[in-house]
């Protein structure tokens, strides 16, 4: 449980507090294609937080999200969700416990219509339904019968985020949702992420490259490098320059 990372006071403080964090990673190790990618990541995310994870390509950001979801097997350490151990839980079960991932690529079924895609995300008991989604992204209502594969990149990304939201998750994991989008769409995506965090109380973990944008929306910033947490601090305590130094 001990942490040797610099700037780790916030995480340590969170751990020592009496409330159980929604997500806890404890010395998590993981490999991709035989190469170690996560080398002992410890991280707590409290209910309702908006955490941004920064790091350059190959630092292990995507792997971190995929490991939480069970898509990458854990080689060491422990992951728990609201106190419950999910280290070895299969992906579909993790999803049913309230974790949604918007993957970096193809977070949709291109051979199905928008409506069919959204149905795949839906949970009967959820607070978020088609109406809420169409309110967030009105264009999807008009395009609901269209095959996702025939839509523009930005529209597809809206579909991907919508599918993840349709399950009314407790924890939303966003893997670089703004990659390849036009600036106005990037702004819209960040807006939606903030909106679901504040309006629906959904905890958000956002993996991003865009430091400026992150500092505008996140409450806490985590920097990962070489598979280790290099910094974990409230957004108020960090500057873009400080982050650049760690990358």
């Amino acid at each position, binding site marked *: 449980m001990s942490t040797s990372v610099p700037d780790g006071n916030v995480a340590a403080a969170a751990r020592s507090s009496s409330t159980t964090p929604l997500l806890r990673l404890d010395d998590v190790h993981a490999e991709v294609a035989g190469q170690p990618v996560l080398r002992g990541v410890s991280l707590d995310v409290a209910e309702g937080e908006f955490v941004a994870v920064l790091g350059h390509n190959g630092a292990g950001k995507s792997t971190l999200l995929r490991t939480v979801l069970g898509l990458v097997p854990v080689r060491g350490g422990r992951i728990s969700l609201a106190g419950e151990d999910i280290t070895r839980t299969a*992906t579909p079960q993790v*999803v049913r416990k309230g974790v949604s*991932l918007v993957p970096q690529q193809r977070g949709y*079924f291109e*051979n*199905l219509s928008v409506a*069919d895609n959204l149905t795949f*995300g839906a949970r009967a008991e959820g607070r978020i339904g088609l109406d809420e989604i169409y309110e967030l992204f009105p264009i999807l209502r008009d395009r609901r019968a269209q095959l996702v594969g025939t839509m523009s990149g930005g529209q597809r990304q809206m579909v991907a985020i919508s599918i993840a939201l349709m399950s009314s998750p407790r924890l939303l994991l966003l893997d670089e949702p703004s990659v390849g989008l036009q600036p106005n769409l990037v702004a819209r995506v960040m807006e939606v992420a903030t909106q679901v965090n504040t309006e629906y109380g959904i905890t958000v973990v956002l993996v991003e490259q865009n430091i400026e944008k992150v500092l505008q929306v996140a409450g806490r910033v985590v920097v990962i490098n070489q598979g280790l947490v290099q910094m974990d601090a409230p957004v108020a305590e960090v500057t873009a320059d400080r982050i650049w130094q760690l990358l």
Partner: protein
Amino acid sequence: MDLFVQLLLNGLVAGSLYALVAVGFALIFAATRHFHIAHAAVFAAGGYFAYFLTDFLPVGPAVAAAVLLSVVLGVALVTLLYRPLERRGGAGFVLFLVSLGALIVIDNVFTVGLGAQPARLAAGSWFTTTVAIGEWSLIAGQVALIVVAFLLFGGLVTLLAKTRMGKLVQAFSANPEFVEIVGRKPQVVLVVVYALGSLLAAVAGVYVAADTGMQPGLGETFFIVSVMAVIIGGIGSITGSFVAAMLLGLLQNVLLLVMGAEWTLAAIFVLFLVLITVSPEGLAKINFRRVKASA
């Protein structure tokens, strides 16, 4: 002209047979990317089981039980063989070799277990009753085959397009990992596609057993033509595979007008090689996709 129409009819029969095997394989391949050559064994199993079971049951129940057993065989192959193999990292060519091994073993088990003679299913006299179609004719068994092939194909397309399960299969074909990410179990899809694919192949096997008898090695012959149909039809396209299989059957028979039977299959192979050289995506890229999308 007389002859041409009769050859077309015969081609429709051959095409229906290829289509049943091809569509089953296309469905399985599209969803799983498994080169399931043991599909040929499932085809043979349909015929052999039906032949074997008629010793104990009337023809109808025997055929139903045989198709069911073949479905169980197909599902068993994926759940007990391919899936554990994939979990240990085996894929692509390794999986193909395992499937080939399964094919050889199953073929030999049938040969040893059911004797050397061709397994001829006694379907009853209705099967060989001549059905006149204008001045042309087929036997009732052939008519039944064509009807069943079209019905099963139509049913499958409807199932895929209209039902939740069908959409899950389509979703899995496009993006298997994302199916897990939205919280669905991929095992369900594997069982469904193998069950449906095996059902189609088994029906074809039962017909062959009733018509001329099931023999060792026959499954492989049908499988090769069917894989050609799947490639021509555009890999993964159910409708494309069906249409291509029908065309192959028709072509194989109509070509008899201009060449001997020993050359027709060779001619089709040559055409096929030319086609995949020119258009590796198959013939179907444009047309059948639209049909599928609107289905």
